[in-house]
């Protein structure tokens, strides 16, 4: 009798864990552990969701499946920051499995096979596309304000394009402020700093910063950190990745400014509850 009760209690416990053990609660930011790539999910106070990039492949949908509630089959906005497979390939499986409200992207001047497939899939599934650039703003159903700070234009003015040109930088003001930078490169970072020295669109401080380009040494300069004064930095990088991301110089710059950081290669999927107390 006692053994039966133990078995049934364990099974019910497992079932409850399966049902309610998800991470994407209202007002959270989840940096998914997708190996060497990037995929970040923001959920606003009303449950509206934005997925920034899709990581390098099928691993993203597994990470997403463990993050979203079982019954959740839709994502409101999916953003493709730039057409590199470590950001785009996983979106193919996301588009195949979830109902997507809108696909946001900057105009890829030279789309690779993955981006072409993504655009074909979006067309097949009648997912509206939206070209985003500086000045694009929306207010989500839960009251979060989204603003695109970079790039200046969705079109790269100087083809052939730089590897990471026109990566969108998104600022989300909810209970706290989040900045998503994708694979922002040094040129766009400097341009953004210039813009933010005069524009009110840019926040004075950010609470959570997604460190650009997996912690590459060429971006996230001391000037950038001094301008936005992040309270915590999140880095998406694969375990023992061949690019040796994040670079020690970047980590040193963060340490010099006394900014604590979390890394997916050490911690796996990182969940941040976005409450004012975390600021």
């Amino acid at each position, binding site marked *: 009798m006692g053994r039966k009760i133990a078995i049934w209690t364990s*099974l019910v416990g*497992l*079932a409850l*864990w*399966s*049902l309610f053990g998800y991470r994407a609660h209202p007002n959270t930011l989840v940096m998914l552990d997708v190996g060497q790539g990037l995929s970040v999910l923001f959920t606003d106070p009303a449950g509206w969701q934005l997925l920034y990039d899709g990581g*390098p*492949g*099928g*691993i993203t*949908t*597994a990470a*997403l*499946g*463990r993050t*979203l509630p*079982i*019954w959740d*089959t839709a994502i409101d906005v999916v953003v493709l920051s730039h057409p590199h*497979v470590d950001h785009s*390939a996983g979106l193919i*499986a996301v588009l*195949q*499995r979830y109902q997507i409200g809108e696909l946001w992207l900057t105009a890829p001047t030279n789309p690779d*096979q*993955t981006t*072409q*497939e993504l655009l074909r899939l979006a067309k097949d599934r009648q997912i509206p596309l939206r070209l985003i650039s500086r000045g694009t703003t929306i207010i989500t159903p839960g009251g979060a304000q989204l603003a695109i700070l970079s790039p200046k234009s969705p079109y790269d003015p100087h083809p052939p394009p730089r590897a990471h040109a026109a990566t969108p930088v998104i600022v989300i003001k909810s209970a706290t402020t989040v900045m998503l930078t994708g694979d922002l490169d040094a040129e766009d970072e400097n341009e953004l700093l210039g813009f933010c020295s005069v524009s009110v669109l840019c926040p004075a401080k950010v609470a959570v910063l997604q460190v650009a380009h997996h912690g590459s040494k060429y971006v996230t300069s001391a000037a950038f950190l001094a301008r936005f004064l992040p309270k915590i930095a999140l880095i998406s990088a694969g375990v023992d990745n061949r690019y040796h991301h994040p670079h020690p110089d970047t980590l040193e710059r963060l340490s010099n400014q006394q900014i604590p950081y979390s890394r997916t290669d050490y911690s796996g999927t990182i969940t941040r509850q976005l409450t004012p107390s975390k600021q």
Partner: protein
Amino acid sequence: MGLLHWFGGGILAGSLWSWAGAGLLPIAYLTTRRRRNLTALVCGLGIGLGLWRSHHFNLLLQSQRWTGKLSDAVGLVCAPADRRDGYTFLTICFCDPPTTVRAKIDPYADFEIGDYVAVSGSVAAPTSQNNDFDYARYLERYLVFGTMKQPHIVPLTDPPHSNIKLRLWRTLTATRHRIENQLNRLLPEPEASFLAGLLLGSRRLIPPDVLADLQKTGTTHIIAVSGANVVIIASFVLIAARYITFNTRAAWWLSLIIIWCFVALTGISAAAVRGATVATFSLWAKHARRHVPATTALIIPAAVSVVINPAILHDLSWQLSYAAFFGIIVIAPWLHNRLAKKTLKLPSIMIETFAATLTTTPISWWSFGTVSLSGLLVNPLVLGLVPLATGVGALSVVASSLIPVFNPLLRLVTTVVLRSMLTIIHLGSFIPLSWGEK
């Protein structure tokens, strides 16, 4: 039945090594009480067949090993496209030169089995990335003899041949894709790919961390279409068929047809054929009310698979699968009797798991240099949920296609069952019961 046993044993021994065959003959003679000469003759015939088949097969292998340049060579995509993260493997059969190659192409290329293509590029001999893995031997199991990297492939709009076999293959592959897509739409990941593994044996889309957990806990066998999966399906079918037809004979035939259709749907993988042969054999024995000795039920399917493809003898999954079979049907009953005499009562699933672990451990140690005993704890927990997960999963696929209005409910129930299994496997992967140097 005894003669069949010695015939199958002869084929296996003859295919393995000729001296093993020579050794088997006196054993067959000496261990048989009645009809000694006939037994030795049948065993000898089996050895002869095994020797002839392996010799013939080696000649075929030698004639098909070819390397060089192809220029617009006409080939046929002769296996389902193997789509992975970032690339696709395409198996292409050529008549001139007479060889079969595995081409690595971009992941979104729209080729499928039965397509005729013109191929240009270099064919190289398969080379291994590391010393522990013989890639050439691995590919020969699938009768593939060369590799190509990013060849130029053009589909032929006017195919030179078309036959019913190809059309059947295409239909089966399309049906399989439809089921996989249905699972993808219905369930979140990693549950969708895990269920595809349980039902169809496809494991290529299962995330690496889940595969690692399965390997650590010795539970990978549940996502290979094995005898167990086929027997579960066969049992469901037999019960349903009896209700539908009210006729034992018709139910038996219906079960057989459905089992082999299911095997076809899984891509006629070696594991599925193995499982289905065992299931068919045991169904036949039950139907004919014949007593089939356990070793005969083991040897005959093994011999049939070796006659079809002698290279399978070197296939690790084949070896592990038959070692596990041997443990379950020969060692486990013996253990059961011994323990019963000592009035020690253990659940039969624990005894079977222990027996299978006992017989597969030497092969794992020899091949990987590691031994994991966490399977002893995890397998009894997980295997209890396999029939439930298979049943609920299969029902969900059918019901979600017919009555989509119930999809949210089906998604909830199926995901909870599968996620519970995956949680047990994940927790089991932390049990420190592995030893080894690698």
